[in-house]
C-alpha cells in the first residue's frame, strides 16, 4: 500500500509518501510525478511515513532526479534509517539530495 499526498503550486511540488514504495506501488508514484512535474522547478519528497523501498522505488526516484536536474531541484526529506541504508548500498546517497 502506498498513499500519496501531493500539493503542486507556483512551480513547487510537495509529495508526501506513506507506506511502501515497491514493485506494486512504484508505478503509481511514477504516474503521479509524470502528471505533475511539468513547469515544476522545486520538487520535495517527504519520506517521513515511508516505511519501505525496493529497487522498483529507486528506479522511480532516479528517473525523477534525471528530469528535475534538467528543470530545477529535487530533495528528499525525513528519510528513515532502513531506507537510508538502501540509499547507501546503492550509491543513491551521492546522487540524491537528502535532508
Amino acid at each position, binding site marked *: 500500500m502506498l498513499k500519496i499526498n501531493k500539493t503542486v503550486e507556483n512551480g513547487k511540488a510537495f509529495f508526501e509518501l506513506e507506506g511502501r514504495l515497491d514493485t506494486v506501488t512504484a508505478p503509481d508514484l511514477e504516474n503521479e510525478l509524470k502528471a505533475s512535474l511539468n513547469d515544476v522547478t522545486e520538487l520535495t519528497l517527504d519520506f517521513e511515513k515511508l516505511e519501505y523501498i525496493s*529497487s522498483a522505488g529507486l528506479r522511480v526516484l532516479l528517473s525523477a532526479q534525471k528530469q528535475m536536474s534538467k528543470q530545477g531541484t529535487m530533495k528528499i526529506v525525513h528519510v528513515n534509517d*532502513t531506507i537510508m541504508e538502501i540509499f547507501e548500498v*546503492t550509491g543513491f546517497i551521492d546522487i540524491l539530495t537528502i535532508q
Partner: protein
Amino acid sequence: MNKITITKSEDGQTVFRDMVMDAIDQNLFSLQSEIESILQAAGCPMKTRWQIRVAVEEIFVNIAHYAYEPEKGKATIRVETSEEHSCAVLVFEDRGIPYNPLAKKDPDITLSAKERKIGGLGIFMTKKLMDEVSYVYDDGRNILTLKKTW
C-alpha cells in the same frame, strides 16, 4: 498465501517451511508478510528482517516478471531457520527459462544521476544485503539461495 509445509530437522534445531505459489506481483506482499512472521518467531532482529524483506522482493519479482515470460508459472520458496545458529536460509525455485542473475555485471554506483542507467539494482542490492547468494540450475529448475545470519 498457498499451502505451507513445515518440517523439522532430526535434531530439532532447524525448521523448514516450504511454500508454493503463483509467481505474480500480487503475491509479493503476502509472501513478505509470511516470511516476516517466520523470521520474527525465530528471533531474527528487525533490521535483518527488513533486509531480508527487500531481498525477497527482488528475487520473487524477478521470477514473476521473467522466468516464464510471456506465460505465468509457480515459484517454490523454502525458508530454513535455525535459532541456535541465528541464521536463515531462503531458497527460491522456479521451472522457467534457465537464468543466472548472478552472472550479470554489477551496476557502476559511482556514476552521476545523469549517467546512471535506470534498473539493474535489484540483484545488486540483494548481494549487498545478504551474507551469501548462490545460484544453480538443476533438474530443470533455477535455484537461488540466500543466506543471512544475525
